[in-house]
């Protein structure tokens, strides 16, 4: 009798486990609506955001990042850490131990040689890789055996865990790294992911079927995925309302009420990494040389502070964006590196007195003029232009509201938006962002789970685009602060996350004080999905299909 108890418990546990498995129904195809098609399925040949919403269903990285910001193994057996011996030599040597028994969708075994190949192909810039820079710090990469890869870095690289975030490429199904741009793989990839590509009809749809060779038994639950390219947002939302699709990628914020009124469809929001910010040009306009003079207006920190105090953040976030965005205060808003800084609050009185103090007196026509301002000749009008990009309603409305609020303070602001391909132009076409031919830029950008490269580009003084460096770098505010330079370099060579966060938070405080950028808000977008698509979760850190193997369709 005494032995029956444990057996009974065991049986119950097994039955419950079986029940849990059975609860996930197999079969069905999930239809996903997306606004544009992919240019290529090779994630090393493009940086388009849309690619990483689709391709991870086919190609997998070694480790992924879950919605809480924690790394978890995918093709790796474990996340390399100093404790498991994966991180050695003060972080300069990383040992990746890979899962065994994984095969590519064509049945070929996945081995460490594929990881080595991925690094070789990504670093081969002559073949057309857009990631050569991200692999440039690797001194050597060696397959120690079929399931162990050792990566040696020239110096410690804080983003070592993200090294293979774009997915592992199969050596046998790609081609010569020097000829990457002509690989057939770009249209017909072979991967280890839960799905395989069945058809790709350009501009129309991408059809995927279950990868029968997928390593996890019983997964994926779905038979297939169909990504439909539907450019019109109105048509996409109508298809969701009709139940003809299960997921709508990136619905616009104005559709919020549609989801509230559509039974069975929910908007799954997550904070996005994208922060809308203003880049204030601290240097003389259009003179991208070493030792350029300060900007006549924005060169004075008191004016920048007045601009920050002259923005009614609550009005913009609560009224204009109807609460669909979150207040942003610094470049470090999310995940393990989040820093709390004292946010500027709307205070037009203080803003006006700061402008008075900075030598900008109110003129007869309601626009201030310089009278003893440190960098502007007396009589200069306090006039600024603001440049964002077109086809983004909320951004445009935000600019207009701010221009209006600043107008009350005696600041004349003109909004001049341009197409994205113009705003994000390069040095070779003398884009204003690169040459500094602007007062204020307004656009959204953001750091991923590892902010180092991003903030270094934006804030380090060596990254000011100039004639001398042929426009390299993203420090468009042309801000230079030796302490921030030191802290950025420190964070870049420090493996400990706590120490790095400490450095980042000190940077956040200095940025908040000196204001090379004004942080406005962080998007809280997401995806609309049919509730019968179970296990669908939008993640801040990963693309749409990050957990697609777990999705399943409940019976209608």
């Amino acid at each position, binding site marked *: 009798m005494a032995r029956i108890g444990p057996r009974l418990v065991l049986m119950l546990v097994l039955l419950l486990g079986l029940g849990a498995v059975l609860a996930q129904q197999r079969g069905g195809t999930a239809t996903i609506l997306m606004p544009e098609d992919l240019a290529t399925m090779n994630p090393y040949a493009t*940086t388009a955001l849309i690619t990483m919403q689709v391709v991870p269903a086919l190609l997998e990285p070694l480790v992924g990042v879950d919605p809480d910001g924690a790394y978890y193994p995918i093709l790796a057996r474990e996340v390399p850490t100093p404790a498991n011996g994966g991180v050695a030599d003060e972080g300069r040597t990383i040992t990746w131990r890979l899962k065994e028994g994984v095969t590519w969708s064509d049945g070929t075994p996945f081995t460490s040689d594929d990881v080595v190949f991925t690094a070789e192909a990504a670093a081969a810039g002559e073949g057309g890789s857009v990631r050569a820079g991200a692999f440039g710090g690797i001194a050597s990469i060696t397959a120690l055996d079929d399931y162990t890869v050792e990566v040696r870095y020239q110096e410690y690289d804080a983003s070592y865990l993200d090294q293979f975030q774009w997915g592992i490429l199969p050596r046998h199904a790609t081609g010569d790294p020097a000829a990457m741009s002509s690989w057939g793989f770009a249209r017909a990839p072979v991967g280890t992911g839960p799905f395989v590509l069945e058809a790709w009809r350009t501009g*129309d749809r991408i*059809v995927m079927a279950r990868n029968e060779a997928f390593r996890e038994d019983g997964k994926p639950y779905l038979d297939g995925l169909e990504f*439909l390219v539907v450019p019109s947002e109105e048509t996409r939302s109508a298809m969701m309302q009709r139940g003809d699709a299960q997921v709508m990628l990136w619905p616009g914020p104005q559709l919020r009420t549609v989801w509230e009124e559509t039974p069975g469809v929910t908007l799954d929001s997550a904070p996005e990494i994208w922060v809308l910010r203003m880049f204030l040009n601290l240097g003389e306009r259009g003179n991208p040389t070493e030792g350029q003079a300060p900007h006549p207006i924005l060169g004075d920190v008191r004016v920048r502070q007045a601009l920050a105090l002259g923005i009614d953040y609550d009005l913009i976030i609560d009224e204009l964006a109807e609460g669909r965005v979150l207040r942003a205060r610094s470049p470090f808003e999310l995940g393990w590196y989040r820093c709390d800084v004292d946010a500027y609050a709307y205070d037009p009185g203080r803003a006006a007195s700061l402008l008075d103090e900075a030598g900008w007196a109110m003129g007869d026509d309601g626009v201030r003029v310089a009278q003893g301002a440190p960098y502007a000749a007396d009589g200069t009008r306090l006039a600024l232009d603001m440049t964002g990009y077109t086809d983004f309603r909320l951004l445009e409305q935000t600019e207009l509201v701010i221009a209006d609020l600043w107008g009350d303070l005696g600041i004349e602001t003109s909004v001049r938006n341009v197409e994205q*391909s113009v705003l994000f132009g390069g040095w070779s*076409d003398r*884009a204003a962002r690169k040459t500094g031919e602007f007062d204020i830029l307004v656009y959204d950008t953001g750091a991923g789970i590892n902010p180092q490269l991003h903030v270094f580009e934006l804030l380090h003084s060596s990254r000011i685009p100039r004639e001398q460096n*042929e426009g390299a770098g993203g420090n468009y505010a042309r801000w230079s602060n030796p302490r921030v330079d030191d802290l950025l370099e420190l964070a870049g060579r420090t493996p400990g996350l706590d120490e790095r966060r400490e450095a980042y938070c000190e940077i956040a405080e200095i940025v908040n004080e000196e204001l090379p950028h004004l942080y406005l808000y962080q998007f809280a977008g997401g995806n609309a999905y049919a509730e019968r698509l179970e296990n669908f979760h939008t993640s801040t850190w990963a693309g749409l299909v990050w957990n697609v193997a777990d999705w399943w369709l409940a019976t209608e």
Partner: protein
Amino acid sequence: MSGYVLRRLGEAIPLLAIVSLLVFALLQASPGNPLAQLERDPTVSQDDIRRIAEQRGLLDPFPVQYLRWAGGAVRGDFGESLQTGRPVATEIAERLPNTVVLVLTAFAVTLLIAIPVGVASAVRQYSVFDHVVTALAFMGQSIPIFWFGLLLILVFYVGLSNPLTGGALFPAGGMYSSGLQADLANRLWHLVLPVAMLCSTWVAWYTRFLRASMLEVLSQDFVRTARAKGASERVVIYRHALKNGALPLITLIGLDLPMIFSGALFTETIFAWPGMGRLFYQSALRRDYPVLMAIVMFTSALILISNLLADLAYAWFDPRIKYT
């Protein structure tokens, strides 16, 4: 006649060369960068961007870029898309059949409706029928086409259901339902709303043109003569009057025919139709110069050819016109 055609075609060649030079120069002079997407990604190094710009020949001086393009184009090689890396010919070959199906169907439907309605409207001038047609034609001309497309979706996709299946009466997007690309009936079903959207404006214009031209012709002497000779009303209208009244229609068709290549952007966008219009628009937004150039050149060539065809059709309809 054949000498005339050859001369016209011969004249087209230098014209196309000038068009290509002008368009290439305009594209180069306009602001914007095909690598803007890379510039926006902070994880892509400036060295990578410069290398890719060099690899794609974007840093070469204008004459070098133009001559390279023109050298390829005369051999039929329009280069590779800057976005996808695939040959431009492949990009176009994938989209062109979709646009041809959409635009030709819409053309056929337009003519099938506009000719009898336009003629009947002229014959029964100021009748109730004529007033209704005129009112509808004005509506068709003045309603913004994208708004009409959305209205079609609202009524026939969201609002009305097929009583047999319970699904939507007509689909909102795409060329076929999942897995049914070889099913003709399914493809026709998907054509209905986009064709209706395109036809809404075309039918209106064609009907008005035909009505006006028929009214002019019907009052002429030769029509009265035909009637006096005892020809039936049907013969008078369709054989004598329409043959002359259709001449302005040929001009219109000649002008609209290049749409077979350039596509119908609004219709393709609203009904998720992967055609040439969307390819052109996306290429313009992303400054994909090789694709843009190829589409512009083919459209220009088609404009010249369809003008020639219209001129030849005039001669066929009106024997007084002779080309030598």
